[in-house]
């Protein structure tokens, strides 16, 4: 029983929070601001609790597994959710269904926790659905917005469709091996053609979830249409979780098929990067822009994954940590501006620096981190991904990846240019940035600067993986 409490602590805490919110909502309710503050405090506590007693073990006959790295990954996701609660305060406060939104988001988070911890394909599937379905509802949260419902529709359909494909893959795998346990699978995966086919179906499903080209088409629409908080959650938390579990699946279950997926991932990483970068070049909507940028970032994550080593795992986890800070900050700025002015086009950002220097610096920091420019942490994150990936790769691959860094810099600079350099007769007026958003942005900024320079964070991750 003790084991149970201890090992499943993250999931239990989240569940408790969900129920707490539910009771409050059912009860007499609270003011939006009070509710938000409560949620923020709860999530902070949740985040803090995550660091207690990170242990290794398994439950339910191997259905649920955890270890130090997994606990750490959950902490990262906790951190991300906590930051979201801070960063989008502006939008939350205006929302009618604050508690519901968080209930959905935390449910999805819960799903992700189970996803990361799953030791069995059934568990994997269940948690995957738990992680995905609430997001669709979150996407439709701005009920009156046309594009929101479109986004939600695309989200749910593509999610369901990819689940179908995933399940088909799983069923084939089951048929070929007779087991759905992660522990048993590696010993029976031999590389028969049926297994490879199963793998390809599984891979396609992951590609959907991670928006790897050519399964990325839903991403931009969903990001643009959904409320910014949802897009942020989708692009950071859910990407991170899926990346983690992707590593587990590839490294553990499909290790025998290494040669198959290695080349595939190399190819797709380059294609994903290129497509993400090239499409990002010409986006006018800042959210679409961030969508394509996150597609490109996934390309980089794939580079790290391709290394097939603990260094790769560490680099990906590290990158996700940095990505949480950077991308959330970028979304937060976009979200704050959107929620106060409704503007979300790159052109609207022209001359922003004259009126909102703080937001601009934060955005710049975030974008530089995304672009991988030192001294921001993004530099280290990208560099370690590439270094890890270069281990087995040839020069051409590394050169293409490195050149993609240059292209990506170009479009990040576009935003910087609009904010800092372009002249605008009527820039967005001076915005009131709520304290919690400010706090969140400063935490992000601190994270962006320090995560890279302070090397023990990476050392610790490397130690875990």
């Amino acid at each position, binding site marked *: 029983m003790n084991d149970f409490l201890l090992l499943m602590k993250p999931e239990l805490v989240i569940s408790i929070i969900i129920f707490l919110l539910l009771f409050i909502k059912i009860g007499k309710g609270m003011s939006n601001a009070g509710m938000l503050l409560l949620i923020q405090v709860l999530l902070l506590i949740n985040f803090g609790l995550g660091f207690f007693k990170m242990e290794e073990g398994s439950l339910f006959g191997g259905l649920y597994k955890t270890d130090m790295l997994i606990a750490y990954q959950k902490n990262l996701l906790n951190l991300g959710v906590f930051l979201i609660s801070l960063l989008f305060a502006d939008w939350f406060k205006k929302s009618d269904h604050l508690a519901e939104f968080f209930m959905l988001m935390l449910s999805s988070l819960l799903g992700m926790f189970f996803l990361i911890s799953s030791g069995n394909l059934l568990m994997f599937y269940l948690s995957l659905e738990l992680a995905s379905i609430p997001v669709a509802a979150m996407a439709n949260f701005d009920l009156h917005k046309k594009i929101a419902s479109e986004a939600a529709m695309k989200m749910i359909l593509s999610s369901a469709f990819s689940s179908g494909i995933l399940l088909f893959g799983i069923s084939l795998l089951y048929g070929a091996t007779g087991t759905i346990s992660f522990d048993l699978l590696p010993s029976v995966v031999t590389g028969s053609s049926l297994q490879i086919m199963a793998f390809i179906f599984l891979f396609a499903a992951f590609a959907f979830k991670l928006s790897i080209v050519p399964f990325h088409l839903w991403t931009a629409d969903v990001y643009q249409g959904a409320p910014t908080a949802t897009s942020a959650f989708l692009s950071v938390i859910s990407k991170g979780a899926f990346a983690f579990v992707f590593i587990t699946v590839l490294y553990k279950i499909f290790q025998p098929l290494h040669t198959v997926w290695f080349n595939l991932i190399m190819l797709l990483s380059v294609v994903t990067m290129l497509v993400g*970068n*090239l*499409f990002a*070049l*010409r986006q006018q909507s800042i959210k679409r822009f961030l969508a394509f940028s996150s597609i490109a970032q996934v390309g980089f994550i794939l580079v790290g994954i391709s290394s097939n080593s603990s260094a790769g795992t560490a680099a990906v986890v590290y990158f996700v940590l940095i990505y949480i800070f950077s991308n959330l900050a970028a979304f937060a700025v976009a979200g704050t501006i959107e929620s106060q002015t409704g503007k979300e086009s790159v052109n609207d950002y022209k001359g922003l620096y004259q009126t909102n220097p703080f937001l601009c610096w934060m955005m710049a920091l975030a974008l530089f981190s995304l672009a991988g420019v030192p001294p921001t942490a993004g530099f280290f994150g990208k560099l370690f991904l590439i270094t890890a990936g270069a281990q087995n790769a040839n020069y051409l691959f590394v050169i293409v990846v490195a050149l993609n860094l240059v*292209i990506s810099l*170009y479009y990040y600079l576009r935003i910087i240019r609009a904010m800092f350099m372009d002249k605008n007769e009527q820039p967005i007026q001076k915005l009131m940035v709520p304290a919690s958003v400010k706090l969140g942005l400063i935490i992000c900024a601190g994270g962006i600067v320090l995560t890279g320079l302070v090397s023990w964070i990476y050392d610790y991750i490397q130690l875990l993986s």
Partner: protein
Amino acid sequence: MPNATYILLIVLLPLAAFVLLGLFGRKYFNQSSGIIATLLLLLSTALAFYTAYGYFFEYGKVDGVYQKIVVFKYTWLSFSEGMSIDMGALLDPITAMMLVVVPFISLMVHIYSLSYLKGENRFATYYAFLGLFTFSMLGLVLSSNIFQMYFFWELVGVSSFLLIGFYYDKPSAVAACKKAFIVTRFADLGFLIGILILSGYAHSFDFITIIQRLAEPEAKEAQAAIAGSFMGISALSWGVALVFIGGAGKSAMFPLHIWLPDAMEGPTPVSALIHAATMVVAGVFLVARLYHVFSMSHPVLNLVGYIGAFSALFAAIIACTQTDIKRVLAYSTMSQIGFMMFALGVSGANTNQGELGFTASMFHLFTHAMFKALLFLGAGAVIHHIHSNEMKDMGGLRKHLPITHATFLIACLAISGIWPFAGFFSKEEILLAAFEHNKAIFYVAIFTSALTAFYMFRLYFKIFWNKEAQGHGEHHGEGGFAMMMPLVLLAMAACAAGFIPFGSFVSSDGKPMPTELHLTFSIAPVVLALLGIVTATWMYKTETGKSAKLAASLNGFYKSAYHKFYIDEIYVFITNKIVFNLIGRPAAWFDKNVVDGMVNATAEGTGLVSEK
């Protein structure tokens, strides 16, 4: 032994004047700056004379041979074992001789300018520049290291640039100073590559070492230098030829002479100092310094001779047609330096004994400095008086400027080579050396010599006789003591310098060189010179139409000589049409459109792909 501190002071005092006046002159002592600079230079000159005296009469001679003494040497920049730029002082006869010439002329010019540039706005700046020039020139002649010489060579060039462009708001002055700098810079390129070649074989930059290693036919370095060849010409020849190009540029030898006439845009005392007496002979000095190495390559020595002779004749012809008095003097300078050059070129058949040509060349350098400075300063007095350079504004000035007139006449006689003036002695020696070694050059030289007498007296008569120029009454007099004293001193030098037994001091091998007069040989040149003078008297003493008739009868030739044989136009064509239009513009275009275009195309291509 010579005192190193003194020698250092000789060089550093003018530098001190430059720094002091350059930094603080305009603010703190504008009008007194001339006095300060002059006093500093006076001290420097005294030390220089003392050093020269000491060298010639006390410690310079060992066993009857003048030694090359390295007084001091500081490593300035060390490249590798043996290869280093040293800042040092090398004393030998030619250096000691230059130690007399340079500070003396400079001092005269300093004194002269006190009056000549009085009231000038940038008086202090002027003296600062003079200080810089004197410093560089002294550094040049004292150089113990070929790179040190290059160092000061360039400094001399730039101070000349600054002084020519002293009247910086005059477009012609700006153009002239740029031209002077760029043309000499072009020649310096040859010098630099020459240095690299020679030092590359000698494995040293030190003059003494280079001469030891390259002028000794048995030395392995010299053999390597002779053996190494490029386009069929030995490396040694390439090296000295390139060095000679450097010298030719500075000394305004054909075809690198085009800057010299234009350089007359500078203040006249500057022309006297730089473009007559000191800087322009740096090329001759350079060849003399490396004389033994030049001797190893006869083709180059012949080249030196022919170029010198041609320049002498060429300049003399042009000088006959010019109407700007300073330009006449400029071409005469070029012509005289041509004499010095070919004197060096015709000698050098062997290195074992003293060469008459070498001594003669140095002797002519010495005497020429005196009377050419005198001529320029005299011309300066004239210009100061009537505010024009043009002959047509002059005439009959002998009554107004008696001292100037007398000294000018002395100088004219000296340059024409009339006994007993200085030019006679040195020119005789040059002609004799040419006669002994190369008859062709001798005939050119003797003709040029006559021509010299002709154009100098043309100048003289046009200024001081001929018609009465209009409205002299209101002009001030001769410009006072400060202007007259240098004239008189220089005139005395021009009279007396010829009697110095020059050969016993300066010779190519350090041993005394007998230089007695060959009276029978002297007859022809003197008679020819007199013929020139008489012709000039006949044509120009009074205002007659004879000169115009003569010019008309030689129409085409006269015209082209008047236009300096269109050399300038050729240069303009080369720079504008070829360098600018065929190289510069395409390079700029290529960069803007092709190289940069590729970069932009890459960017645009990426953009296009993203637009699908």
